[in-house]
């Protein structure tokens, strides 16, 4: 792998774009999903910005004077006019992102990372299991499949949240529930004190209740690691192999381009080898603490 120094002398650095420099985008819309969780829609502020990504990928979002964080793309990839991000306030930068209003400027770098296996899913039934803020990163898959309905088999979404007030995209969840070309199961861990006549319990319970054709089903799961671990196990009980289930990993990330080392996850860098992995690639690591 080592390259002779003379080759480095030949590199034309002047022509290289600095990958750490974000491009300006403007907030065109923003709303609260629930207190502490907002969605923003952004458009390029000048001709340099592009609204492209593959479902599963993420962008680094910068806010002036605060910092930069990785956030998954959650809009329809065929919309090349804008990008959408749903952000939960869990730190300084995400708090600032939740406070953004129309016409505010942010900086974007990306898209980065691996994508959900939409090609591999063609012709197959797709079961998506998401937990909490694991729904935004899988939403582009739902848009994609619904737009290309004939290319895919049955589509099932099982989404779990802590309480009814921790649900994002509530109108859309209702709309998906009413469609007859997909199944949408929404459940909450705890509804005490809420008017809630929906499902109760963990997503794993509802995975068990599905009737799946293991030879022709692709599983996709995104949420807390512990949830993904048990969601995958429940899908495996249906006979799905580790190659047929995909997970999206999260680690501390500063650069998203494989330079800062923060997201090293055993042999991988989550920023470039992930965030989406076939479960077979990370199964061994899921069994070990603190990797």
């Amino acid at each position, binding site marked *: *792998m*080592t*390259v*002779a*120094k*003379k080759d*480095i*002398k030949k*590199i034309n*650095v002047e022509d*290289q*774009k*600095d*990958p*750490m*420099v*974000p491009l*300006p985008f*403007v907030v065109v819309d923003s709303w609260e999903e629930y207190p502490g969780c907002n969605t923003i829609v952004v458009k390029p*502020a000048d001709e340099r910005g592009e609204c492209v990504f593959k479902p599963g990928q993420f962008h680094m979002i910068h806010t*002036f*004077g*605060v*910092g*930069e964080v990785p956030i998954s793309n959650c809009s329809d990839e065929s919309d090349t006019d804008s990008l959408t991000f749903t952000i*939960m306030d*869990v*730190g300084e930068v*995400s708090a600032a992102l939740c406070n953004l209003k129309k016409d*505010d*400027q942010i*900086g974007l770098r990306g898209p980065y990372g691996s994508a959900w296996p939409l090609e591999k899913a063609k012709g197959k039934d797709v079961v998506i299991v998401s937990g909490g803020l694991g729904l935004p990163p899988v939403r582009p898959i739902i848009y994609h499949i619904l737009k290309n309905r004939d290319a895919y088999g049955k589509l099932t979404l099982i989404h779990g949240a802590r309480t009814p007030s921790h649900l994002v995209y509530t109108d859309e969840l209702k709309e998906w529930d009413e469609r007859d070309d997909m199944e949408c199961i929404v459940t909450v861990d705890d509804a005490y004190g809420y008017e809630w006549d929906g499902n109760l319990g963990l997503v794993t319970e509802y995975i068990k209740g599905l009737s799946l054709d293991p030879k022709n089903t692709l599983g996709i799961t995104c949420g807390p690691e512990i949830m993904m671990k048990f969601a995958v196990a429940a899908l495996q009980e249906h006979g799905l192999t580790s190659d047929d289930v995909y997970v999206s990993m*999260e*680690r*501390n990330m*500063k*650069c998203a*381009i*494989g*330079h*800062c*080392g*923060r997201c*090293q996850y*055993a*042999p*991988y*860098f989550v920023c*470039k080898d992930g965030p989406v992995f076939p479960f077979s690639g990370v199964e*061994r*690591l899921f*069994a*070990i*603490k*603190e*990797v």
Partner: protein
Amino acid sequence: MSFSKQSVCIDRTDFSALFDALKERGYKIVGPTLRKNAIVFDEIDSVDDLPEGIGDEQEAGQYRLVKRDDAALFGYNQGPQSCKKFLFPEKSKVWTAEKTHEGYDIVEEDHDADAPCAFLGARPCDIRAVEIQDNVFIHNDYMDVGYTTRRKKSLIIVVNCGQSAHTCFCVSMDGSPKAESGYDIALTEVIKNGAHYFVAEIGSDEGADILKDVPSTPAEESHIEAAQATVDNAKDQERAIDMDGMKEYMTQSLHSPIWDEIEERCMACANCTLVCPTCFCSKVEETTDLTGNIAERWRSWDSCFTRDFSYMHGGSSHISIGSRYRQWITHKLSHWIDQFGEAGCVGCGRCIAWCPVGIDITEEARKVAERKKGEVA
């Protein structure tokens, strides 16, 4: 390992001409110099700044300077610092942002502003470490523009090793006390029978051009033999890592009581990662001025030994110190091979000497391997 027949001989009395030749070409000379009881790698001006007649003794958790009984200029083993300090500085500005009426503009850094560095006295293991960092910052999906600019402009004058420290184990990591490539000029310092000279090998056109300005004579057979004897003297090393099967032993040992045992000794001080010439992890922080109109992003070294390193909402991934040591050693000796095709350790031994409690990577690697072999048997 043999010396080029085209080598030249530079007498010690003419050595300062090398400094003049470098300065004339606009290089900032970076080399070994004595500071606060250590030989550091920093900007130097003349041959007088070199640590003449000073050596070092290193052991696990120990670094001591000693007086040599000769006037060697490069008679030490290696100090805590390497080329990393200049190519991937401890702290560097990523960019500046200035508020505008609509939002803010980003002003990119002029990475070409600094004078090129001439590394005088890099060790052969240091060159290999630079090449390992090249794979991270240059030959990767994205290029670090600042690193590449500095690296492209820099000049490497390696000084081959005349002895090994107790902590050295480069030979077992596919290295050698004599540099094979990657340098502009390679020097071997010889002090013998009252003579004091450097056998110089040319590694690049720039190196050849520089040597034209330094008085020298073609190296004779006797000079080359003496230089060969010098580097041969450094080949016997007390420490080694048996890399045969190590990649697998490490990946199969992620779940092992060894890490709990390490936790009892490791203080997570991060010294090993700071002195390591290949460690490249960093953090990025944003600062604003008092007006709030100017923001700057700064990148600085970080270490996988800090708890903050793996912090996400909800907590850190690596809470126990054992898991942090595991992250580090499995990266160096195993996962680095998955990522970049070679190990991330060059065997310089700095992490052994500068560990305040003397944790020894060669010893820990041996324990991991032996435990695994024991399980298989």
